[in-house]
Structures are given as C-alpha cells and as structure tokens.
C-alpha cells in the first residue's frame, strides 16, 4: 500500500508567447493555438539545467509535505532532455537537496516518465520508505535547434513536477496502475544526441488516441469503476486536441480532464506532475474522490494510475 503525500512544481520565469515563435516559423499565433491548444510556454534560462528545475520542484514538494530531504529513502528522476549521456540528473538532485548517499535512480523517459516513476515508487515504498519522484524537462534546448521544425517547435515548453509517495494507507491512496511499452514504434518519436527531435506526428497521435483510453479502460475495469465516476483525469499535457479525443473515446466530458497546456505547452514527462500539483493545490479533493492519471510517450510507453483521495 502506498499514498501520495504531496506534489510540487516549478516553471521557469520566461514566457514565450505564440507570436514570438510564430514569427520565427512563419505561422500566426492563432494557427498555433488552433492546432495545439497552446497560447504560450515557459523557456528556462540558458544556464538553467534539468537538475536546477528538478531541485526547485522537489523543494516545493518537500515543503508542502512538511518533510526534509533526509526523510526521503529513494529519489527517482525522469527526464528525456537531460544534458548528457551519464550521469543523469538524479544523483545531482539528491545531493543538492542535501541527501548525498541516498539512492537516486534516473528514468531516461520522455512524457511517460512521471507516471512510470510514480508506479515504481508505489511498489518500492514498502522497502525504501518515502520516495521523491521528480520529472524535469528542458525541451527548449531541443526544439530550438536549427533547423526548427514547426510541427515540433510550437508544442514544447520547460518545467518540472514532483511528488512524494509514502508507504502505508490513508488519504490519496494509490489503488492500482497499469504500465505498457511497445518498442515497435521507437522510431516514430525519438531524440538522437545533437539532432532535432524526430516525430511522426500522425503515428504518435493515432497510437496515443487509442492507447491512452485503452489503458484507462483497462485500469478502471479491473477495479470495477466507471469513467464517469472519476472526479478528475490528470493526463500528460501533449495537445489539447488529443486530450479532447481521449475524453470522447471514454465518453466523458472534456471538462473532466484538467488542462494547463494553454499556458505551459507540452513539458514532456513533467507535464502530468505539474498538472497534478496545480489541481491538488486548487481543488483539495474530498475523501473518496477518484483521480485518474494517464500518460503516453516516446517508446512508446503508456499507462494509467488510479488514486482514491
């Protein structure tokens, strides 16, 4: 048994509106908004790293949980945009938080990394105690590489999200999760070192449109729940049109899916945790509320998690 203790998030200060990107890509701000649901995104400062943002989100999370880094038994840090091949940001994050010596694991996963980290933490909490899961992305360093690809450059932003998962029972209980991967589609969304992000957009959307509702349905069915009984869906913020499509596939109103993509764009693995942090702060779920998390990303990896408040 494991519970969600707290969430935290960090967004860089610099706001990049559609008109700034549109001018470089020869597209209007309204076109970008129409095809993506994105109006602006945040870009990190040139010297701001994935680990910097992860530490900021982790500090916010620890503060909300009333914990210090010394209370954490394991750190899991997901990122698909880390600056180097190894070491990843996880040990840096743990060390900078003051927990040098504690185990710290990197998940080099884009988009789906936040939820995969949470699902692993739910299983490992009984062994390691409190686990801090962080997802941090500096996608601006990727998408602004020349030549800028307009189908990619308009979508992404920077940021970090975090959560603490603890062993035991109580509020915000992690009921169940499903994880899936299929490497047959690995070439359809990939980032090679020093190369632009490569994306077969049609394949990604087509697969995500099927696999996200399928994972949610699998999770709800085996826990004898209906989609209509869920209080809120906290999904990877990839594209507003995709979020709307998943809601349609599940036959629930799109308003049941929290969305902040208009202000932040797609922050890859960080997006779901940023959304969860915002929603949790502003809504304070009532006991018994069901919260459903869902992700899809490069790999392809996809999955869903059910939490009862």
């Amino acid at each position, binding site marked *: 048994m494991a519970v969600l203790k707290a969430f935290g998030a960090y967004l860089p200060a610099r706001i990049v509106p559609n008109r700034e990107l549109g001018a470089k890509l020869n597209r209007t701000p309204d076109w970008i908004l129409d095809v993506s649901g994105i109006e602006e995104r945040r870009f990190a400062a040139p010297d701001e790293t994935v680990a910097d943002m992860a530490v900021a989100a982790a500090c916010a999370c620890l503060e909300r949980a009333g914990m210090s880094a010394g209370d954490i038994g394991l750190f899991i840090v997901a990122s698909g945009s880390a600056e180097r091949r190894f070491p990843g940001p996880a040990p840096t994050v743990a060390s900078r938080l003051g927990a040098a010596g504690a185990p710290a694991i990197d998940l080099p996963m884009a988009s789906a990394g936040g939820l995969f980290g949470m699902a692993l933490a739910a299983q490992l909490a009984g062994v390691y105690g409190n686990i801090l899961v962080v997802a941090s992305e500096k996608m601006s360093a990727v998408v602004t590489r020349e030549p800028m690809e307009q189908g990619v450059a308009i979508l992404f932003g920077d940021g970090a999200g975090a959560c603490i998962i603890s062993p035991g029972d109580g509020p915000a209980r992690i009921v169940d999760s499903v994880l899936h991967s*299929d490497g*047959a589609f690995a070439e359809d969304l990939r980032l090679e070192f020093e190369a632009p992000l490569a994306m*077969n*957009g*049609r*394949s*990604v*959307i*087509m*697969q995500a*449109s*099927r*696999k996200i509702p399928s994972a949610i349905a699998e999770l709800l069915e085996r826990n004898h729940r209906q989609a209509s009984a869920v209080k809120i869906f906290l999904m990877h913020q990839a594209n507003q*049109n*995709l979020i709307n*499509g998943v809601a*349609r*596939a599940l036959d629930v109103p799109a308003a049941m899916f929290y969305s902040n993509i208009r202000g932040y764009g797609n922050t890859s693995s960080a997006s779901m945790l940023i959304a969860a942090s915002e929603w949790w702060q502003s809504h304070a779920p009532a006991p018994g509320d069901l919260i459903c998390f869902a992700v899809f990303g490069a790999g392809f990896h996809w999955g869903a998690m059910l939490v009862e408040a």
Partner: protein
Amino acid sequence: MDNRARIITILKNVSKKDSVPDADESLFDSGYLDSFALPDMVSDLEREFKIKIPDSDLNPRKFESISRIESYIESRK
C-alpha cells in the same frame, strides 16, 4: 452499399465535407483528414465493418486514401 460507398459515407461524416476526393488522392494532403480526425475515422471503420483494427495496423499510410482504406478492409475479410 459497396465498401467504397461505405468508406465515403464515413469520410464525409468525419471530415464534415460533402465533396469526395479521388480514390487515390491523399486524404491528408487534400485536407480531408488530419492527425486528430484519423483516429475517429478508424473507430468509425471498425464500427461500420465490424472489425477490430489492431494497434499494429495503425500505420497512417494504410489509411492515406480511399483506395488504400478499401484495400485494407478487403484484406481483413
């Protein structure tokens, strides 16, 4: 109604257009489908032809044109 006519009916519904492209014309390049309409098209094809299209068959090229969709549907019989 033959398969092509049934496909065209679905395409008109999904694309919200009354016109019909040439059978070999790209549905994407001609603006009848985009990335987000394609999953709806596939779902409607499954319902109409009572087939389950596996995720491994969800290659956009298989659904690029009316004739390609027709060939795929035929191959599933």
